């Protein structure tokens, strides 16, 4: 089993940060707690995957980030291209390209697994999304195993595991004195050449502590529950705040608009902007002509569950939910995807 000492790992990361864009879990936000606020997010810094300049900025003891690593493959806001008038009056198109190759360090197995859904949707059919493809191609994933399943996590109920190595290029597992290192792919092999690795005989990987597993509904149960009043009952307390779709590793819906703006120096440019959209927003599914097939909140709420557990598996043959639990933690009215899944799984089918 390969092993790297903590010091050597930090040194490698410091050097890496000079050569590539190093993205790692890091604390963001004001350090001081906002006094006496109910909002848990205001109680201190939260951890996100962000570009860091050295290893001291990495939050080593994080559970999971608030927003998944998906934001680095499908950014919240992305300028796809800009169109300007050149010096001779000609039209010039600039496509936005990645400046440097990237390494995402410390990505959890569930986040990496979520990329399967994005890959299926963005790359499977022609034409592939070139912007997503470029990010995917130029990013190496160095995963960090979870020592345990955290509160709200349920990856094992949807086919994942806190120490799964399937979707990363290198997987690190924290052990005494450093990390055990599993090289998974050729890309990982190439990246690992800069690491000061040792061979350690008989190094055993600790088994992560697991949460209870539960049954998820069958395809027949999903089909049978579509028109059930259950969705109305759950939808009663939903605020349509869309936080669940924003934190999720597999959500990928977007909106594209062209904007004409005047730059601070007075030039008129057009830019095509892609930004996250959410199936929970009222006008998400509105058709040209004005008809809105998901005008009601419960229809939109229901869609979130069906998309993850029925449409994506049926259309792309991949699990649509990775069980990261972010939506459970984030939902302000405690709409718990685990509760919904277990409620539906318990239903008797006629």
């Amino acid at each position: 089993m390969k092993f790297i000492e903590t010091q050597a790992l930090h040194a490698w990361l410091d050097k890496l940060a000079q050569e590539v864009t190093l993205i790692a879990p890091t604390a963001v936000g004001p350090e001081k707690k906002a006094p006496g606020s109910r909002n848990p997010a205001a109680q201190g810094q939260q951890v996100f995957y962000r570009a860091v300049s050295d290893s001291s900025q990495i939050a080593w003891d994080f559970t999971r980030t608030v927003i998944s690593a998906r934001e680095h493959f499908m950014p919240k806001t992305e300028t796809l291209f800009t169109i300007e008038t050149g010096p001779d009056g000609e039209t010039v198109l600039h496509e936005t390209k990645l400046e440097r190759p990237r390494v995402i360090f410390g990505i959890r197995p569930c986040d990496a697994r979520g990329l399967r859904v994005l890959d299926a949707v963005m790359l499977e059919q022609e034409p592939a999304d070139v912007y997503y493809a470029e990010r995917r191609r130029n990013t190496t994933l160095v995963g960090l195993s979870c020592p345990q399943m955290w509160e709200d996590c349920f990856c094992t109920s949807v086919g994942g595991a806190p120490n799964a190595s399937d979707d990363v290029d290198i997987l690190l597992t924290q052990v005494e004195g450093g990390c055990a290192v599993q090289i998974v792919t050729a890309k990982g092999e190439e990246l690992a050449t800069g690491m000061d690795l040792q061979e350690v005989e008989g190094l055993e990987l600790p088994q992560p502590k697991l949460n209870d597993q539960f049954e998820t509904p069958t395809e027949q149960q999903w089909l049978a529950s579509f028109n059930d009043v259950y969705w109305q009952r759950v939808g009663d307390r939903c605020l349509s705040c869309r936080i669940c779709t924003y934190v999720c590793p597999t959500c990928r819906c977007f909106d594209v608009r062209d904007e004409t703006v005047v730059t601070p120096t007075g030039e008129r440019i057009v830019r095509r902007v892609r930004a996250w959209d959410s199936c929970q927003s009222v006008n998400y599914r509105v058709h040209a002509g004005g008809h809105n097939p998901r005008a009601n909140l419960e229809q939109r709420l229901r869609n979130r569950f069906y998309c993850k557990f029925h449409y994506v598996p049926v259309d792309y043959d991949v699990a649509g939910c990775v069980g990261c639990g972010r939506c459970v933690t984030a939902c302000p009215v405690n709409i718990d995807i685990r509760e919904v899944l277990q409620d539906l799984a318990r239903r008797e089918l006629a």
Partner: protein
Amino acid sequence: MSERTSNQVDGFEPKIVAFLCNWCSYAGADAAGISRLELPPNILPVRVMCSGRVSIEMVLKALMAGADGVLVLGCHIGDCHYGSGNHRTVKRIPLLRRLMTYMGIEPDRLRLDWVSGAEAGRFAKITTEFVEAVRALGPLSLPLREGL
């Protein structure tokens, strides 16, 4: 010629969007033009039917889209063509100014005043004063500009 301030050195010419109500301030601006009064060229006039029509979205959008200052000129209180339109303005604009200041935008970038159709000189005076006040502040902070 109007006096130049020291900020003129960097060549900054403020862009001012002026919302003028059709019945009073726009007529006042017209009168100023007809009287051949000297007016600063920095003003982009936008005619609205009443100063009460000027929404905060319009003021903020003007600033985001490239204006360095916004001027709202309406009828004097009691003279509004629609009766109480300017009653809305007189509460809305000062409140917006306070909120903008709180968020870090200089208060002198937004000014509300009253100019009647006969007050050509007052129009010239207010616009000149306002342009100089904004010139002294410099351009609006870059992160707030939408064209980045």
